[in-house]
């Protein structure tokens, strides 16, 4: 095909899904000239699976993205239909926000955000080639031969690369939600030495609301108090929809068991690796034979549509089987199926080929983000997009990379897991993946990350000043609570303690000592605390958490210090592990493959033992002595 030159760009972003959007916005806001390419302009920021944002650990990611100046939290706040704080009965570390979103509204919001952004061009076109000069990227070419030069390229291709839609025996090329797949880019990537592999995921059917019998389902309402994702927002309105619960039954399971031979996975027709946390209904039934029912959530897709999403019912069985089992479910007996469930297979990269900046180790200026990196989920994708966008921009501007670590964020944990350990299946964030989860709460994402966002240049002066005030207010309130005492004779206090179900005081105690009791909240003590300053609820809550969990927080902080010591011992890029004396063979191979940036990262690679780490430290020391320089 004949190529023709169109435009000089700083950064080309391939894909305008959740990863591509954050990457493009961040890079453009940092002053780079960015082009973002999508196969279809009507699928920008699409939600081809759940019409929802957030959830356990994912809510944390959204708040972190917001604290760093990303867009996802604001878009979710602007287009939410129902909001729920999950795990409210548990500790603050695992409170997670989840909203039902207006799928079209969200997509529209994001498209408009891209369109309005200075330095940013939103372009419909399939990228089929990445141009390189030596081992550095130099541009991209569309399917029509349009050539754009670029100093950095961010791959955010989601499930489009050689996408295949599988429904029963039907296995056809296709992207998500009826889009075209991107069939040509994979070949170019393989030529560049990108280690591609094949993952699989799936989505359930959508049904028409008008055909459902809600009288047979349990309604699930949203929260009364609605907390926004974005730290910039306060009041974002009310719930506009509700969800419903129903469940599969013995009959549903029978239908699936009878037809299991028609499942492309059970028949061996498809081989892509699927995620364990997103099993198809046939998987659930075959693996958990003792369960006689599986819960299903019926979620609205938007205000201006009757489409409903059936969470819990992913499948790749043939359409006629899907119809049978859907109609066996309470409330869905007459359901009109609008879109059938499908499995999708796609090319993605082994993320161990990436640095923690998400740049490829072997190709200068090429970055990967989102599902292309082997993750799953809109929030995981957006987090990586933001990091790739920030680092690509900084590289072009000659600035040091910004690396998030396991101790400061879920974003850092996500990326460290991906690039250090790789992933055998599409990776989903979970609170149990973070060893510092008491520190990495959703509620303090702004306290943790706003200074970094400000430093990077994605958080403006006004917001930063607001943050500083909040921080100072919290600190002052903690000190005040520590040195404000109350008497055991105080009758109001006696009543409060009794109401909270905790013993009366035997002697005087500070307010902080009272808040340290798990049963007593900061807000419970308002009646006996006349000098309390006017603080926002969030500020009061922060003061309370700092006091109540002080012992645990201190312990985690001391672990973090230990962690940082190893993290700060950088490994030079030119280390030759193959020739390093004393390393075991497995360690040599793993270290050569991952090329860790620090001793800390090296220690997390499976197959690298403490003895191997000692050898690395000795090597570092020898180099230092040889070079006669200090670290």
């Amino acid at each position: 095909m004949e190529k023709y030159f169109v435009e000089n760009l700083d950064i080309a972003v391939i894909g305008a899904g959740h990863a591509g959007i954050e990457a493009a916005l961040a890079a453009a806001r940092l002053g780079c000239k960015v082009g973002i390419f999508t196969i279809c302009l009507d699928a920008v920021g699409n939600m081809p699976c759940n019409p929802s944002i957030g959830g356990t650990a994912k809510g944390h990611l959204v708040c972190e993205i917001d604290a760093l100046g990303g867009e996802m939290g604001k878009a979710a706040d602007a287009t939410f239909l129902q909001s729920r704080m999950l795990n409210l009965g548990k500790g603050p570390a695992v409170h997670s926000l989840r909203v039902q979103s207006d799928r079209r509204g969200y997509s529209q919001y994001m498209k408009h955000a891209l369109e309005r952004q200075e330095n940013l061009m939103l372009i419909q076109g399939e990228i089929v080639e990445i141009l390189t000069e030596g081992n550095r990227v130099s541009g991209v070419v569309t399917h029509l031969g349009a050539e754009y030069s670029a100093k950095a390229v961010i791959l955010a291709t989601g499930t489009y690369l050689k996408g295949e839609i599988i429904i029963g025996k039907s296995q056809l090329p296709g992207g998500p939600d009826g889009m075209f797949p991107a069939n040509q880019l994979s070949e170019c990537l393989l030529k560049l030495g990108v280690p591609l592999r094949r993952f699989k995921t799936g989505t359930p059917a959508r049904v028409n609301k008008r055909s459902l019998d809600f009288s047979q389902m349990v309604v699930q309402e949203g929260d009364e108090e609605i907390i926004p994702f974005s730290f910039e927002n306060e009041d974002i309105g009310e719930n506009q929809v509700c969800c419903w619960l129903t469940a599969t039954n013995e009959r549903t399971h029978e239908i699936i068991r009878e037809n299991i031979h028609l499942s492309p996975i059970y028949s061996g027709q498809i081989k892509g690796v699927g995620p364990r946390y997103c099993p198809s209904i046939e998987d659930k039934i075959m693996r958990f034979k003792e369960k006689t029912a599986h819960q299903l959530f019926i979620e609205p897709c938007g205000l201006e549509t009757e489409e409903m999403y059936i969470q819990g019912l992913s499948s790749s069985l043939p359409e006629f089987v899907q119809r049978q089992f859907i109609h066996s479910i309470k409330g869905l007996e007459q359901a009109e199926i609008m879109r059938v469930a499908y499995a999708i297979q796609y090319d993605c990269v082994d993320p161990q080929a990436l640095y923690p900046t998400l740049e490829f180790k072997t190709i200068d200026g090429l970055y990967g983000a989102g599902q292309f990196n082997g993750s799953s989920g809109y929030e995981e994708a957006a987090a990586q997009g933001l990091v790739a966008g920030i680092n690509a921009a900084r590289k072009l501007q000659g600035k040091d990379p910004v690396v998030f670590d396991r101790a400061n964020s879920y974003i850092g944990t996500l990326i460290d897991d991906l690039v250090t350990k790789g992933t055998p299946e599409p990776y989903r964030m979970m609170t149990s993946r973070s060893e510092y989860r008491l520190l990495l709460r959703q509620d303090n994402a702004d306290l943790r990350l706003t200074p970094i966002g400000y430093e990077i240049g994605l958080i403006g002066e006004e917001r930063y000043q607001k943050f500083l005030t909040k921080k100072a207010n919290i600190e002052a309130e903690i000190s005040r609570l520590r040195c404000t005492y109350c008497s055991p004779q105080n009758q109001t206090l006696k009543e409060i303690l009794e109401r909270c179900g905790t013993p009366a005081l035997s002697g005087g105690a500070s307010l902080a000592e009272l808040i340290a009791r798990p049963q007593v909240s900061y807000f419970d003590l308002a009646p006996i605390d006349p000098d309390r300053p006017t603080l926002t609820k969030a500020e009061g809550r922060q003061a309370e958490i700092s006091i109540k969990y002080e012992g645990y927080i201190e312990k985690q902080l001391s672990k973090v210090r230990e962690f940082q010591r190893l993290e700060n011992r950088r490994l030079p890029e030119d280390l030759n592990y193959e020739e390093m004396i004393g390393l075991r063979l497995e360690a040599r191979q793993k270290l050569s493959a991952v090329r860790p940036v620090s001793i800390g990262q090296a220690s997390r690679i499976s197959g690298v033992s403490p003895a191997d780490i000692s050898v690395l430290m000795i090597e570092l020391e020898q180099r230092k002595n040889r070079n006669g320089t200090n670290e």
Partner: protein
Amino acid sequence: MSDIICAIATAPATAALGIIRVSGADVLSVVAPLLYKINGTPAVLEHGKATLCRIQAEGEVYDEAVVTYYQAPRSYTGEDTVELCCHGGLYVLQSVCELLLQKGCRMAQAGEFSKRAFLNGKLDLIKAQAVIDLIEATSRAERKNALSQLEGHLSRRLSAVYERLVDLNTALLAYVDFPDEVDAPEEDTLAELRAIEKELSALLAGSDRGQLIKEGLNIAIVGAPNVGKSTLMNRLLGYDRSIVSDIAGTTRDTVTEGCRLGDLKCHIADTAGIRTTADPIEQQGIDIARARAQAAQVVFAVFDGSRPLTEEDIALAEEFGNERNLAIINKSDLPQKADLEYIQDHFIHIVKLSAKQGEGLSAIDGWIETQYSAEDCGDQGILTSLSQAQRLLAGRESVRRAIDCLEMGFTPDLASLDITEAASAVGEVTGQTVTEKMIDNIFAKFCVGK
């Protein structure tokens, strides 16, 4: 890197002196609070100066030691270092080591002091390869050792504890990460934690036994002057080691020797007769005798059966009488005049013998055998290494914290942090890693996902 490590730096044999080396940034923050001058005031250490200190914690005296502090970088390792020159018995050295572990030190791996010395530029480059070799050899030996030690019953018991911790946490974590799909754990988390704590305590009790078999039992012979302690010592050893005379206060120093009683290797210390004295040298011997007796696992309290109990005897019975120690009524060949009832009020275990005639000595062997028989711990598994015991100890601490946390009314997701730590500690002994395992378990055991 700069956590504080400690280890016995001298050869593991009974010798007159043994050195414990402690190294790491700000080592004094851990060690100094344990050191007192002989007059009881806190000891002050200066770089390069040897100071006589009493090692003491929670009112218990562990040993008197000559302590030398080396400030970084002027030390062997290049870090802040303290060397405790203790009395040679392994039991004393291990007790001090255990105390240091309790206070936050970590057991040094073989070669680790040298490794640190190297990393801090204290060893020249030629030694680098030697250090690597050492680390390699050690990790190989450790692996082999770990395997051979963990076969059979012990391994099964430890693995069972590990699995229980992981299962408990899996349930908690699944409930946290998939709140819409997974119900709160049905089993009583607190009850299960208490059961695990008990099992870990049982395993740790076994570890004392294991130590005993490996290192031997430390026995101190105490008594008033002239009750026949040295005669008894010589009898037990089978040769004359202590000087025997009728002059009270003949034994002024403590004499320690190894022998075999019953089936057990023992280290017996003959101590100075305890009485009130004006002689400062004798007094010093008596002080050492007391310290020795306190550090011993078993005290043989010797009384002269041929005379009424003296004030000194009564004081000794009060001091050492308990269910653990043995009262020996000596001189059974002479007419008996001592008030045995008084002794019986204080001791459960009493034997009568004549050290001089060699009569009734087999009763001591018999007693040792019944008290410290190795038979019943043969098949239940014994932890033999201090570092394994240390990890289990840490694991039990974490379990206890989790129990406290739940008892105080905090939510189980908080306790899960402690449970993770407990599982890691136990997993270190059995060679399993936690995080991945728990995540795998969530998917294996709970049907979650959209």
